[in-house]
C-alpha cells in the first residue's frame, strides 16, 4: 500500500494537517481501530476481558509469540517471498532447546543463543535454496516445512519435554511481568522496534522494499538481491527460533505439535496488518498490530458467545477482506496518479 512508501528525504516537510491526514489514512490506523473495537465490545460484555489481572496480562502475553513470527514473515513478504516453514522452525528449535537443557549442563543464556542461531541456520537454508536455485519461495518453504517438522518429530519420537526439565529461571521469566506488562511482550516489543527501525530507516531495509516492489529494476540498479534474500530468510528463521525459545519459556512443555500450522497465522497477521502479499509495501508495525488483532479476536470469540471453533473461519474472512481492501486502495491510488498526470 502506498502509505508505507518512504517519503523521499528531499520532499519538503508536510504541514501538520497533511501529516494528520496521512496518519488517519494509514492502513495501520484502520487495523488499530479494528483492534480497539474488538477490545471495547468484548470488554463491554465482560469487563474482566480487560479489567482483571489475568485479562490485562493475556492481552499482551497471548500475541507476543505471534508478533515475533509476524515480524519475520513481514520482512520476507516485503522482499516478495513467503516463508511457510516458520511453524516447523519454531517446533524444531523449541525441541532442540528442551533437549539442550535435558542433555547438557550449558548455561541458560548459551542455550538460548544456540537456539536462535539454529533458527538463523534453518532460515539460511531456505534463503540459499530460494536465492540460488531461483525457485519460488512458496515451493521451497513448503518442502522445508515438511523436512524441519519431520526432523523434529523423528528426533522427538514419542517422548516430549516436560516443564520439570526446563530451568526454573527460564519458566519464571516466562510468567514474570515488568511494569505490569509480561516480560515476553517486552521482548516482542524490542524485536518490533529493532525490525521497524532496520526496515524503515536504514539503507538495507529500504533496499528490501525496492527488491520486493520490482526485483528486475532493483537488480538493474545494482542492489544485491541474493544477499538481501538470504538476510530476509535468515531474519525470519532467527525470529522463528526466538519464537521457539519464547514458546519454551511460556509453556515449558514441548510436544511434537508445537507451532503446528502457525505459519498461516503469521502470514495472516502480516497480510491483515497491511503487508501486501505482492511484496514491496507494508510496515513491520502493521504486521504486529495484525497479530494483536488476530489473537484478541481469538480470545474474544467465546465471550461474544461464539464457539472458538469458528476462530479459523474469522481469520480466513479477515485475510480475504484485507487483500480485497488492498486491491481497492491500490486501484484508487492508481487512478489518482493517472488523474494527476493528466492534469499536469
Amino acid at each position, binding site marked *: 500500500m502506498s502509505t508505507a512508501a518512504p517519503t523521499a528525504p528531499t520532499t519538503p516537510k508536510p504541514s501538520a494537517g497533511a501529516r494528520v491526514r496521512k496518519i488517519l489514512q494509514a492502513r495501520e490506523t484502520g487495523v488499530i481501530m479494528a483492534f480497539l473495537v474488538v477490545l471495547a465490545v468484548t470488554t463491554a460484555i465482560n469487563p474482566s476481558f480487560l479489567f482483571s489481572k489475568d485479562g490485562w496480562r493475556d492481552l499482551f502475553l497471548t500475541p507476543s509469540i505471534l508478533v515475533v513470527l509476524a515480524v519475520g514473515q513481514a520482512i520476507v513478504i516485503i522482499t516478495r517471498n513467503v516463508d511457510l516453514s516458520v511453524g516447523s522452525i519454531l517446533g524444531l528449535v523449541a525441541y532442540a532447546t528442551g533437549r539442550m537443557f535435558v542433555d547438557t549442563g550449558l548455561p541458560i543464556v548459551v542455550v538460548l543463543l544456540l537456539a536462535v542461531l539454529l533458527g538463523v541456520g534453518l532460515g539460511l537454508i531456505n534463503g540459499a535454496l530460494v536465492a540460488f536455485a531461483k525457485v519460488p519461495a512458496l*515451493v521451497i518453504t513448503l518442502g522445508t516445512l515438511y523436512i524441519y517438522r519431520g526432523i523434529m518429530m*523423528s528426533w522427538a519420537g514419542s517422548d516430549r519435554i516436560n516443564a520439570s526439565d526446563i530451568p526454573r529461571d527460564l519458566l519464571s521469566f516466562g510468567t514474570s511481568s515488568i511494569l505490569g506488562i509480561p516480560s515476553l511482550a517486552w521482548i516482542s516489543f524490542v524485536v518490533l522496534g529493532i525490525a521497524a527501525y532496520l526496515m524503515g530507516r536504514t539503507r538495507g531495509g529500504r533496499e528490501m522494499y525496492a527488491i520486493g516492489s520490482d526485483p528486475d529494476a532493483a537488480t538493474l540498479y545494482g542492489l544485491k538481491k541474493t544477499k538481501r534474500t538470504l538476510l530476509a530468510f535468515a531474519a525470519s528463521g532467527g525470529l522463528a527460533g526466538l519464537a521457539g525459545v519464547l514458546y519454551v519459556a511460556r509453556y515449558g512443555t514441548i510436544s511434537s505439535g508445537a507451532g503446528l500450522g502457525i505459519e498461516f497465522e503469521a502470514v495472516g497477521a502480516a497480510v491483515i496488518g497491511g503487508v501486501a502479499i505482492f511484496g514491496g509495501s507494508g510496515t513491520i508495525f502493521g504486521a504486529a498490530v495484525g497479530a494483536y488483532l488476530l489473537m484478541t479476536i481469538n480470545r474474544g470469540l467465546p465471550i461474544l458467545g461464539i464457539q472458538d471453533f469458528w476462530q479459523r473461519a474469522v481469520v480466513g474472512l479477515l485475510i480475504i477482506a484485507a487483500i480485497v481492501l488492498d486491491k481497492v486502495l491500490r486501484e484508487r491510488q492508481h487512478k489518482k496518479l493517472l488523474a494527476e498526470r493528466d492534469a499536469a
Partner: protein
Amino acid sequence: MTSLLHPSDAPAQQGTRTYRDHQRPLWQRALLNRDVAVWAALVAVYLYASATVPFFDRPITITYLLLDVAPILLIALPMTLVIITGEIDLSVASTVALASVSFGVLYDKGTPILVAAVAALLVGVLCGAFNGFLVTVVGLPSLAVTIGTLALYRGVAVGLLGTTAVTDFPDAWTDWARGRIGESDIPSIMIPFAVLAILFILLLHFTAFGRGVYAIGLNEGAARFSGIRVERTKLILFVLTGVVSALAGIYYTLRYGSARGDNANGMELQVIAAVLLGGVSIFGGRGALPGVIAGVLLIGAIGSALRLADQTADVINIVTGLLLVVSVVGSSALGWVSSRRRRRGAPEPQSSTTKTGNTLPDTDSPVGERERESR
C-alpha cells in the same frame, strides 16, 4: 513465487524461448522427458522396494497404496491444470474437510445419503466458485486468496462439528469405498477415478480448452490477444478443483467412516508436492497429467515402502519434503547445466542468460519443447 503473484512479471520470468524440436531426434524427445523420468523412478522404487522391503511385493500393498493415495490422485488432476495456468489453490484440503462435514452433518440430520452426497458436491462447487470469483473477477492473486479460504473453509468445517464426528454411515456405502473389484486387488473406487483421470487427460491434452490452459500459463497476455477467454478458463478450473476436492472429501469420509473438521489436514501440501514432482512447473505453462499421476504414485509408493520398513510418518514427511525440494531445485540446476553446455558448444545471442524454472534439457510438455530463460 513471483510469477504466481504478478501476472505483470510473466514476460520477465519467461523471457526468450528457443524452440529446439528440430534439433533433437524423435527417440530422444520420446524417451528423455520428465514424464518418462518420473515413471522410471516409480518403477525403480517399486522394484527396489519389492526386493528389499518385506511384504512390499504382496498384492494387498497395492490395494492399500491405491486406497491411500486416491484422494491425492483425484485432487492432483484439476490442480495440475490450475498450476499450468500459473495459479495455485491452497484451499483444496479445507474443501475436502468442508465437503466431508457437510456430507456427514446432512446425513446425520436424516437427509437421504445420496442427497447429502450431492449437496456436498455443491458445497465443493461453491468453494471453488468463490476462489475463482476472487481470482478472476476481483483480480486478486490466487496464493493470497486461497491462503484466506484455506483458513475460512477449514474454519467453517471445524465450526460446524467442533471436536465431534459423524461416524454412522451405511455399510453398503463404506464397504464400497473400501472394496475391491471382484477377486482382484484393485480397489473398486479406482474405476470411477480412472474414468475421471481419462476425462482430465482428454481435456488437457486433446482439446482446445487444454491448449488454452497451456497458453495462459506460457503468456497470459498473448493468450488473451489470441482470443482465449482467460478469466472464464480460470474460473472453470477453480470450480473443477472445488468439486473434485468435494468428491475426494466424500470418498475420504466413507473410507475412514468418519466426517470430521480436521479431515485431510495438510493434504494441500501433499497434492502440490505430487504435482510439482510430476514435472509441472510452478511458473505455469509446462507439465502433463501422465507425469503427475506417476508423481502421486511415486510419493505413495515411497510412503508405503517406508511404512512397511517400520519407518515412522515423520521419516515419510522428511522424504516428501526432500523430494519436493530436490525436484524443483534439481530441475533448475539441470537447466543451468544444459544452458552452460550449450553455450560452450554453440554460442547464441542469448548465451549470457541464466535459466530459471522447471527446465530439463528435453521435452516437458506436450505443447512442444520449450526453453525457459530469464533475463
